[in-house]
């Protein structure tokens, strides 16, 4: 699963990030080429084209306003104190270079765009409002009252009152396959999670996480975790690679359980309808990284930041611990993968020696941590999506935060 954000190159370097580099920013997505903001003088922008001009850098003027982003933004929720907000350090570094920081733009009240005004926001009822369905089979008996209420609430996801939404989601199919994923969640991966208070209770949101493990069980566990720990129960819609749409049966399964092919239009529509969207901005680079790179985030696609700004959606950084251990990749035969037209051709301790069974994940323990949401739209507004440098910069902020979450939670 990945964000296929069409505007990003997404092929940043694979070198490990160093969370201890306080003044380091990665404006171009290449962690090996940090742009250092000096604490005692004008910014040393390295290869930045603005550095050769006498005019003040408009980009730096814009990021001066990042300071208020360090304030808590999610309503009435405890914060994850273990995570140091990286934007605060950025502000410290930048603040010394700017003589008179411009006042931050007053936060505008959220207003829906023209598309959002036209489209009805999907909203699910709170658990206490859901009528408890009858127990009809042994599977239902296995679930508690709360899980059954959550599954019953899924019917509200289909706007037209029919059996399928326009992306192909079928609440009935979700109900049928839920026991399998519930077992994976509880028994096989033994998922632990924290930071649910950072997931918005309603409205659009983007959950951006690290990707790993060849098969997207991290996405599946993320969806199940949010679904089981939100009230009203929210079913995140994961953005998947276009390539998945060409796979027989897989494409149908993905569509029926709510996953959506990652095109710009689909992403926009999901946010307009108020869905939480799960993206893996590393894309395929994340799932095919070798064991030596595990838990080191690859370059981020930036499309999700554009979408967040345009749809005025918060971005919740998410760390998935365990996904990079579920299928350790010893080597990726990239040439062969290109010839076969597939994203990766890995050599693992079990694949290809055990055939397709060798791709199954090991029963590793999963931990999922949700960080504080970024509300970039409050500072930069939808027009910020037009500024490619800003979008790249903000994407790297999210990337650094996810890396921090991963490093501190391992």
């Amino acid at each position, binding site marked *: 699963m990945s964000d296929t954000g069409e505007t990003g190159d997404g092929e940043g370097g694979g070198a490990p990030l160093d969370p201890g580099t306080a003044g380091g920013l990665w404006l171009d997505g290449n962690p090996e080429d940090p742009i250092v903001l000096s604490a005692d003088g004008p910014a040393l922008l390295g290869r930045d084209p603005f550095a050769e001009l006498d005019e003040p850098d408009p980009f730096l003027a814009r990021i001066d306003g990042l300071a208020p982003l360090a304030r808590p933004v999610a309503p009435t929720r405890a914060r994850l104190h273990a995570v140091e907000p990286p934007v605060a350090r950025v502000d410290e570094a930048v603040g010394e270079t700017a003589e008179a920081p411009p006042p931050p733009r007053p936060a505008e009240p959220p207003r829906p765009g023209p*598309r959002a005004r*036209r489209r009805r926001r999907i909203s699910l009822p709170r658990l206490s409002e859901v009528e408890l369905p009858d127990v009809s089979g042994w599977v239902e008996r296995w679930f508690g009252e709360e899980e059954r209420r959550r599954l019953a609430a899924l019917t509200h996801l289909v*706007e*037209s009152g*029919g*059996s*399928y*939404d*326009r*992306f*192909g989601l079928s609440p009935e199919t979700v109900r049928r396959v839920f026991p399998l994923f519930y077992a994976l969640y509880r028994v096989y991966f033994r998922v632990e999670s924290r930071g649910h208070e950072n997931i918005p209770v309603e409205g659009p949101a983007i959950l951006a996480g690290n990707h790993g493990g060849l098969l997207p069980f991290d996405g599946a566990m993320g969806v199940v975790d949010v679904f089981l720990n939100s009230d009203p129960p929210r079913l995140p819609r994961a953005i998947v690679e*276009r*390539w*998945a*749409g*060409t*796979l*027989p*049966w*897989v*494409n*149908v399964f993905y*569509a029926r359980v709510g996953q*959506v*092919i990652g*095109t710009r*239009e*689909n992403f926009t*529509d999901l946010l307009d309808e108020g869905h939480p969207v799960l993206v893996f901005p590393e894309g395929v680079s994340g799932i095919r990284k070798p064991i030596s790179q595990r838990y080191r985030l690859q370059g981020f696609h930036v499309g999700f930041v554009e979408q967040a700004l345009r749809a005025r959606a918060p971005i919740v950084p998410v760390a998935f611990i365990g996904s990079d251990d579920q299928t350790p990749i010893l080597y990726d035969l990239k040439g062969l993968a290109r010839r076969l037209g597939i994203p990766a051709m890995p050599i693992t301790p079990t694949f290809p020696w055990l055939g397709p069974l060798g791709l199954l994940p090991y029963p590793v323990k999963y931990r999922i941590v949700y960080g504080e949401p970024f509300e970039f739209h409050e500072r930069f507004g939808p027009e910020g999506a037009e500024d490619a440098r800003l979008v790249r910069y903000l994407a790297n902020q999210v990337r650094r935060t996810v890396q921090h979450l991963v490093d501190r939670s391992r």
Partner: protein
Amino acid sequence: MANVLVTHADEPLGRRVVKTLYHDPGVGQLLTVGAGPPPRAFDRFLADGSRRLSYVRVDLARHRSASDLFHSAALREAEIDTVVHVPRHGATQDEEAPVAAGLPLRTAEARLVVQHCLEVRSIRNLVTVGSAYVYRLQPGNANRLRENSELDLDPTVAPELRSWIDCDMIFHGEVGAERLRVVLLRVPTVVASGGYVYLNPGLAGPGRLRFRPAGFDPMCALVADKDVARAVRAAVESDRAGIYNVAGVETVPLSVLSRWTRRPALPAPGSLLRLAGAAMRWAGGGPLLLHGDHLRYGFTLDTGLAERELGYAPSYRIGLSRAGDGVLRLETSAA
């Protein structure tokens, strides 16, 4: 008040359009054209003392008969200023547009209709119905198509789809005409009461058995025939020219639609279907559509432009309903 010529009024969509326009106070004379005898549904309209509706049998695919129609005294006397062209889509859902001399009659008719509408100076508006299956589809089930989305111009596309694409391009080419206002409405699968389904290439064709690639189940956008007729009426009354997507609210997988309409589409290996399709083409071309992106990938239409400019909004729902004989059928009902 518009005086309207409706083509293929003897086919299901044409009948529905005529009925809707007949009850529209903004429409005066109705000259209806069909290849067969007048539909029984028109009996009470024809017997009406107002003589607002008349029906003539014309083969629109033949140049001479089309020319005779557009230069006839009946057309002049009725002061026809608007033509609603409902392309040939088959009098029954089993029927396909026939092919003559390698050219689908649907395409030949479209050419002649456009040519004569441009020639006859009293005709100022041309409203036509096209298929939304003309768009190129990307992998996945969530293609959201807008009017400016790319058309499928792949030369290997099936003849049935090819004819719709050719018709679309013929009308598209005249959208900017100065004297003639051209409106093209692209519609997805059309559902009529009683379980009838039109314009879905996955369910088209004679015979009781159809195939689709295994492992794929495209989402099919639906629209009720009454909503199509309402969109045509809105286009007739509007002063806008252009191309508009028209669709309903519901979207269902092809497998479900085929089950509902009792037109089974059996899954078979895609490679096998591709081979069979190539063999059929080599043998002279068959009407069966065995493979193609429309059998793999689904789509929905963005109808925002039609809502804003034509004032169209779907008002009919589509679902299963138990008829008097106790059989569940696909039905449409007012929302």
